[in-house]
C-alpha cells in the first residue's frame, strides 16, 4: 500500500510503497520518514503552480514526451480540444481525466484515466501507435 514520506532535510514529499533511498531534490541519503496526510498537506500548502490553461498543458505534455519513443500529436487543433476537455473534467470532476474515457465511480479504478495515462500497456497503442485519445503518437 502506498504511503506518504517526507525528506527531513528539504521537506520533499513522496507518495509510494517505499521511501526513496536518495532524495531527488536535495540528494540526501536515507532521509525520508513516514508521515500522514494532514502533515503532507501542511508541508505542501496550496500555493503550487496551477496547470489550468491549455498552453500550460501543452507545455507539460511536450516536456513529458521529450526523449521518449512517442510525441504529442502534431495536429494542434485536435490536441487543444483534448486539453480543453481535460480542464473541463478537472473543473467538473476534480481531476484531468481523459475526455475520451469515462469514469466508473471507483476512485482507484479511475486513477488509471488521468492523463497522461499508462498508454504503453493499451492494446490500441501497440496496434495503432497512438494512445486511446490520440494525444500521444509513436515517433516515425
Amino acid at each position, binding site marked *: 500500500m502506498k504511503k506518504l514520506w517526507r525528506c527531513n532535510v528539504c521537506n520533499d514529499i513522496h507518495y509510494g510503497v517505499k521511501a526513496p533511498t536518495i532524495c531527488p531534490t536535495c540528494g540526501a541519503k536515507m532521509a525520508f520518514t513516514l508521515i500522514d496526510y494532514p502533515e503532507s498537506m501542511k508541508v505542501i500548502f496550496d500555493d503550487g503552480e496551477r496547470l489550468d490553461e491549455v498552453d500550460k498543458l501543452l507545455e507539460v505534455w511536450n516536456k513529458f514526451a521529450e526523449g521518449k519513443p512517442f510525441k504529442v500529436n502534431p495536429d494542434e487543433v*485536435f490536441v487543444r*480540444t*483534448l486539453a*480543453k*476537455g*481535460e480542464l*473541463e*473534467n478537472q473543473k*467538473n*470532476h476534480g481531476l484531468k481525466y481523459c*475526455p*475520451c*474515457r*469515462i*469514469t*466508473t*465511480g471507483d476512485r482507484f479504478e479511475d486513477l*488509471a*484515466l488521468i492523463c497522461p495515462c499508462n498508454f504503453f500497456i*493499451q*492494446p*490500441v497503442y501497440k496496434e*495503432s501507435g497512438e494512445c*486511446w*485519445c*490520440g494525444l500521444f503518437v509513436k515517433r516515425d
Partner: protein
Amino acid sequence: MSEAGDRLIFFWGRECPHCAKLHPVVTEVSEELAKENGRGIEEKEVWHSEENAKLMRSYGQALKKACGGSLGVPALYNERTKKALCGMRTTKEQILEWARE
C-alpha cells in the same frame, strides 16, 4: 424513438475529438435506420450528464471489452443484442451491421 431495452445508443463526450469526428457518421446511419425501420440511434453525452454516464456504466461489461479494458467514447451499445462498438476507428459499415443484427 425505441423503448428502453430496445435502443441503439451512441455514447459520446463533448470534448472528445474522436466523438466529434464520428458524430456525423452516426447521424447519417441513424437517419438511414429511422427510414428503414423507425429505429434510430439515441445520443447520450456522458461527461456533462451523470444520468447518461450512469446508463453507460450499467453496460460496462460489454463496453469495456469493446473499448480495450476501460470505458471509453465514442461508443455504441445495442440494448437488444447487448453488443458494443467503441473507438475512433468505428466505420459506417460496422455501425450498420451492429444496428441491423
